[in-house]
């Protein structure tokens, strides 16, 4: 490490103002702070600082996402094997999924980080780490057959218009990864929804079997198109394990639960938000069960199945808890979470067009998060104003 540091120190002048590689300052800076904790010391304010920084925070979130990602890769292979009877073994299925998903991760990171580097250079700032998380979230919330070029366009759109125009990580109003997904969802609906996108019918580097016109419905898709109220797929443990068709990272409740444990254990995600999303979803689903809407299988689906299916868990654990775009006050987090869960189920049940409501529910609540906080903070302001009146 020492030799590397010496090398960095040697080449550093090239990247500074007036150096011949100044145009790559942000890249150099990013690499240096990635390898070494900066030696900069405090100039004002507190003389000592907590060891936590945003790099570590984002890294922990990425680690928390890994179980869901690995399982997602396996499930891509598993679903392919199931639909095409390609005869893959465990590792075959995993590598099939790995080869299917890896290009998406690469595209997402290259496009997103590329834009981050350029913006950091342009604004003469350090690189913001936020995209480390967004970059891994994006491939996990798209169907496996999503073409790479579309993914690249959507990522670029989201990073530029959902984040950088607002001022970068920490200033964005909407969850960047969800903006990517919503962009794909509305701009390329045929690649993002329907029955043909969830299971890959392609070969990857000779692995797997090519099959044209492969269609597999997700359990939520089945429930949406059902004509009777019992038309949903009965609950089974595969829905918990995650061996069902769906977006790459969202299917396994268990893998997501491991991630949730990591996030809660390290205090990086707020348990208040996370718990209230589940409560909101469960309460709403039970409410619909009681209403007994005729011919609506979504309304009749039991609450635990609602929570296990689709992007509910993934959204609750990794998306709703995004500290930047969710409510920031303690009370606000409960309200925000509850409404995310409730709206997700409302959209599922009452909207005939979309089988999944989590994405739209979170984005909707992203808009309302500042309003929720506003009222929470306002109560403190009112209390202070009252104190003046009492004194007078």
């Amino acid at each position: 490490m020492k030799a590397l540091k010496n090398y960095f120190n040697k080449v550093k002048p090239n990247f500074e103002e007036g150096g011949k590689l100044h145009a790559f300052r942000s890249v150099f800076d990013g690499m240096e702070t990635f390898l070494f904790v900066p030696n900069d010391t405090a100039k004002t304010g507190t003389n000592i600082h907590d060891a936590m920084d945003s790099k570590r925070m984002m890294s922990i979130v990425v680690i928390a996402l890994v179980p869901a990602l690995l399982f997602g890769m396996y499930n891509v292979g598993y679903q392919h094997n199931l639909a095409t009877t390609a005869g893959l073994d465990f590792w075959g299925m995993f590598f099939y999924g790995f080869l299917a998903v890896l290009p998406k991760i690469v595209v997402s990171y290259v496009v997103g980080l590329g834009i981050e580097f350029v913006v950091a250079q342009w604004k003469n700032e350090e690189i913001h780490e936020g995209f480390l998380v967004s970059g891994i979230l994006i491939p996990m919330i798209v169907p496996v057959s999503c073409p790479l070029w579309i993914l690249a366009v959507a990522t670029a759109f989201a990073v530029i218009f959902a984040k950088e125009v607002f001022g970068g990580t920490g200033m964005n109003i909407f969850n960047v990864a969800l903006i990517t997904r919503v962009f794909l969802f509305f701009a390329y609906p045929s690649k993002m929804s329907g029955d043909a996108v969830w299971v890959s019918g392609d070969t990857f580097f000779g692995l797997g079997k090519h099959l044209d016109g492969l269609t597999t419905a997700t359990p939520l898709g089945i429930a949406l198109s059902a004509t009777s109220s019992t038309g949903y797929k009965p609950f089974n443990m595969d829905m918990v394990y995650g061996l069902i068709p769906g977006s790459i990272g969202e299917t396994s409740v268990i893998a997501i639960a491991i991630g949730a444990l990591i996030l809660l254990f390290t205090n990086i995600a707020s348990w208040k938000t996370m718990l209230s999303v589940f409560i909101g979803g469960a309460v709403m689903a039970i409410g619909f069960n009681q209403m007994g809407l005729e011919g609506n299988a979504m309304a009749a689906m039991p609450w635990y199945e609602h929570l296990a299916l689709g992007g509910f868990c993934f959204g609750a654990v990794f998306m709703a808890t995004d500290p930047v775009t969710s409510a920031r006050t303690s009370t606000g987090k409960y309200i925000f979470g509850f409404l995310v869960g409730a709206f997700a189920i409302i959209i599922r049940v009452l909207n005939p067009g979309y089988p999944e409501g989590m994405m739209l529910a979170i984005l909707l609540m992203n808009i309302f998060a500042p309003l929720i906080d506003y009222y929470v903070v306002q109560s403190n302001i009112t209390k202070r104003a009252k104190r003046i009146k009492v004194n007078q």
Partner: protein
Amino acid sequence: MTNVIKIRKGLDISLTGGPSNDIASPAMAALYSLVPDDFHGVTPKVVVKEGEHVDAGVSLFIDKNNPSVKFVSPVSGIVTKVERGARRKVMNIMVKPDANQTTRDFGKQKVSAMNGSSVLELLLESGLFAFFRQRPYDVVPSPGVTPRSIHVSAFDTAPFAPRFEDILQGQEKEWAAGLEALAKIAKVYLGISAKQNAVTALHNKEVTEALFDGPHPAGLVGVQINKMAPVNKGEVVWTLGAEEVLFIGRLLMSGKIDFTRTITVAGENAVDAQSYKVLPGAQLSSFVKVTDLENSRVINGNVLTGNKVQLDGFLGARSTQVTVIPEVNCPDEPFGWIMPRVKQFSVSHSYFSWLCGKKKEYSFDARIKGGERHMIMSGEYETVFPMDIFPEYLVKAVIAGNIDDMEALGIYEVAPEDFALCEFVCSSKVQVQRIIREGLDSLREEMC
């Protein structure tokens, strides 16, 4: 029974290099200096000339805007130099002390025979008034405005802070006289630690007392004001350090000023970490000894709110401690974002310090340990900020320069020091204290 106010939010940081219980009385320093920067909000007008002889208690400079506020020399001696910085700003007024100290006599006073204005007049004349701080704005107050109340905290919860109950021993009479005099000016509130039985026992009927129990910042006067009698818009309160109440008592009882403080010198790089009896303005090198000077940071004050000084600098007028920590104790630490880093302290559970108990001491250096970002994590500040204020929103209002929001969110109740722990825990490394200071200054400019 005085009520106990339990402070739950906060953080006690344990650093290596704690002081021993010994108290040393070092010889007089070779040089003393009054640093106008220690008195925020004052425009200094120097009233002595280089080469002039002054007695202890004679003004060195006054406030241009409030000429009755005087800043006096803590020692008698020759004014050797009036040091000026950029734009002729007064940096230091240095006094070389006499071998035999002569102190200006203000005459012994009987507190019971005094009224508010005579106390105030005496404090102004003797330079003791300069120790007051005013909220709002955290500046030296204007003597023309009568405060709603005066707040004193009898304890300090910052790392390595001196224990006031020990300092108080043998000075109980001065303490009582000081508090009584303050009570002539305005209602006095006193915050006492639940553990300070020695102070509680001296129950003083002129003051309103409350016991506080909990981690730092329970000892900060700002927190105590917020819990006992919060500052409203339009109100002015004064605050005073506990030891400075003793200064008043000494003046009243002996007729002469005596600013002798018992401060602690501590920290990993401090030699002979213990208490010292010194005068404010003493050259630090006269009693602070440092190992590895090259890589040390000498801090005037505690690690959270103090400012960096050179070893040949001077003890701050309000400093109750000097802390010496390494500047960088672990250079070029690789892969900070993923390594376990067991030697590092963090409130975050992504480190292991939370498993090691509260007693374990950590070696802290002055590194920021990350790059400054926009505020990302929510709820970080709230965990260490016990006042009934939304710190994050207040800081954001200041950044946005929104005066209405600042007022509504409680800017009048705070001082930068109240936000020191917020700054410590901030994972986005926002310079919260600087922001609050700038907010207070801009607001003061706007309002006054």
